[in-house]
């Protein structure tokens, strides 16, 4: 059993009688689901309208250094006197953009590799499967670190690095699904009627793997957000934008913990945690929706 499955089983906390519920019902059926939707909605809103809400320029420095929360600065100020609240709002955009963009790259790659290796088999499968295995074994964060430090950091580089290193799990799952799909009667029938491989893949195989790809991709959004934060924390983030990871790096290197500046340390980390938690719960609820067997566990 994979860790994803285990957490998934946990997210399915309310047993339900009907299995053919709509996705909306699945998400709204549990308190965890409602919480997750609300949190994700809030952060997407902040990512879009954050700079309109922000009371201050997140980069603005002032003499008011490491000041505790006040009516002027709700979350206090940073070591350069910038407004922590405004920086947290700016960080929401980076996390949402990197998280979703990297997950889309990962989904496209994973789906393509899974479809090709599962459908064609033979040497295509052997080579792609070896590649997948290799990506599954290599420790991901060190690989991302190596790639990010060899390239000059920017948001695009971060998105590419995270997307290119996190597709193997999706590939594995899609491949397994395609292996069973290609033996099914409706595929045989299409082939007997003279349909080509491209047509079968597009109209019969791909649509049947989409729900699976989708559920897995939601989970990868969470992984991508954590990865971006970790890379930024290690100084490999985009130097021109403020992310929650960069904030934690600045807080730590400027000595905020020893200055007891809890207002600088708590908000960025808490935002990462709550957003990742919400997205992970949504992913597990989707997966549970696809695989009702998991509902029995909760």
């Amino acid at each position: 059993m994979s860790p994803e499955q285990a957490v998934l089983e946990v997210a399915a906390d309310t047993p339900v009688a009907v299995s053919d519920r709509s996705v909306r019902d699945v998400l709204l059926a549990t308190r965890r689901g409602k919480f997750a939707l609300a949190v994700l909605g809030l952060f997407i809103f902040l990512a879009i309208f954050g700079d309109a809400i922000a009371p201050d320029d997140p980069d603005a420095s002032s003499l008011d250094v490491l000041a505790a929360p006040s009516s002027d600065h709700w979350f206090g100020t940073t070591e350069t006197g910038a407004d922590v609240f405004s920086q947290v709002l700016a960080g929401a955009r980076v996390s949402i953009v990197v998280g979703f963009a990297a997950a889309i790259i990962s989904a496209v790659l994973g789906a393509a590799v899974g479809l090709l290796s599962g459908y064609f088999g033979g040497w295509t499968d052997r080579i792609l499967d070896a590649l997948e295995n290799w990506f599954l074994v290599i420790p991901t964060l060190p690989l991302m670190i190596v790639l990010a430090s060899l390239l000059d950091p920017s948001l695009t580089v971060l998105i590419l690095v995270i997307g290119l290193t996190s597709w193997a799990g999706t590939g594995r799952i899609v491949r397994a699904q395609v292996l069973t799909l290609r033996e099914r009667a409706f595929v045989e029938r299409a082939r007997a009627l003279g349909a080509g491989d491209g047509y079968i893949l597009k109209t019969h195989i791909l649509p049947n793997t989409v729900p699976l790809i989708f559920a897995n991709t939601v989970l990868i959004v969470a992984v991508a957000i954590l990865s971006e934060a970790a890379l930024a924390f290690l100084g490999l983030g985009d130097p021109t934008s403020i992310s929650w990871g960069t904030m934690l790096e600045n807080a730590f290197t400027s000595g905020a913990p020893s200055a007891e500046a809890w207002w600088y340390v708590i908000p960025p980390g808490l935002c990462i945690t709550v957003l990742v938690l919400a997205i992970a719960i949504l992913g597990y609820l989707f997966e549970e929706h696809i695989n009702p067997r998991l509902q029995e566990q909760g």
Partner: protein
Amino acid sequence: MSGRWLAGKVAAALVTLLFVIIFNFFLFRVMGDPTTQLARLPNSSPEEIEKLRADYGLDKPITGQFADYMGDTLTFDLGISQRSREPVWEEIKDALPWTLLLVGTGTLLATVLGAWLGVFAATRRGKKADTRSLNFSLFTYSAPEYWIGIILILVLAVWIPVFPAGQQVTPGVEFSSWWAEALDVAEHMVLPVAAMTLMLLGQYFLIMRSSMVDVLTEDFITVKRATGLPWYRVVRKHAVPNALLPLVTLSAIYFGAVVGGAITIETIFSWPGLGELSFEAINDKDFPVLQGTFLIFSVGVIFANLIADCLYFVLDPRVQAK
């Protein structure tokens, strides 16, 4: 244990290792052309760069470079650190025991606590204690480990200064005996180990809980209960041993994540292991060191997977029967 099965697993691990070594070469030589890094050195004339290229063997054709690299790597020659001018292998050898100490203690604690908490929650399924354990582990599962580390420093090293916030021993102290030194190291270990344990605990708990829930619904548990055996004995003697299996493999598969956590946690606590070594290498763009630690991390994960396979073989008779 069947020898052929073991030989197959070892061979597969060696092939993966070979791929990792080859990939490492292309990653650093082809993607990051070392001459661009050399050119970043201030005041370097074209002649100096040429000389450096010759020193590093970069004037040879790529096949010759590859042969050199393979030969060096297989004889543990991982190059020279650009920062300290020490051989990379020496730096890794100094750092490795500290990482093993931190990661080993953290993994052990997380496994034991996670297993215990998992059994606790699964036997109270749906009750308040279960829900609370679940929420707690979902939270620690989502929280970045370095953030937890910073909060531990803030609370237990600054606000209530009970534990040291960094490094492995108190600097500048002459210890009267080896156990006084060990005690000092243990004190310095508390916070980083706590961060590591919290990072892993959520995962291990969730696996143990769901595996335990599975086992408790199986027929043999009902049969055991029907024989009149007390509930706690059914749990302890029959359910727990069966439910532990997935946790064993997971600890090994999770080694990759542990390695990632070691980088950030060691950085926070100035713990002199491979993670901090990597962090310094990132900051100084010290690519030979980064290449070396990346190789060691990969070897660690491959090795952990191999051990997990062997453990599974020993523990699960069903695998042996196949």
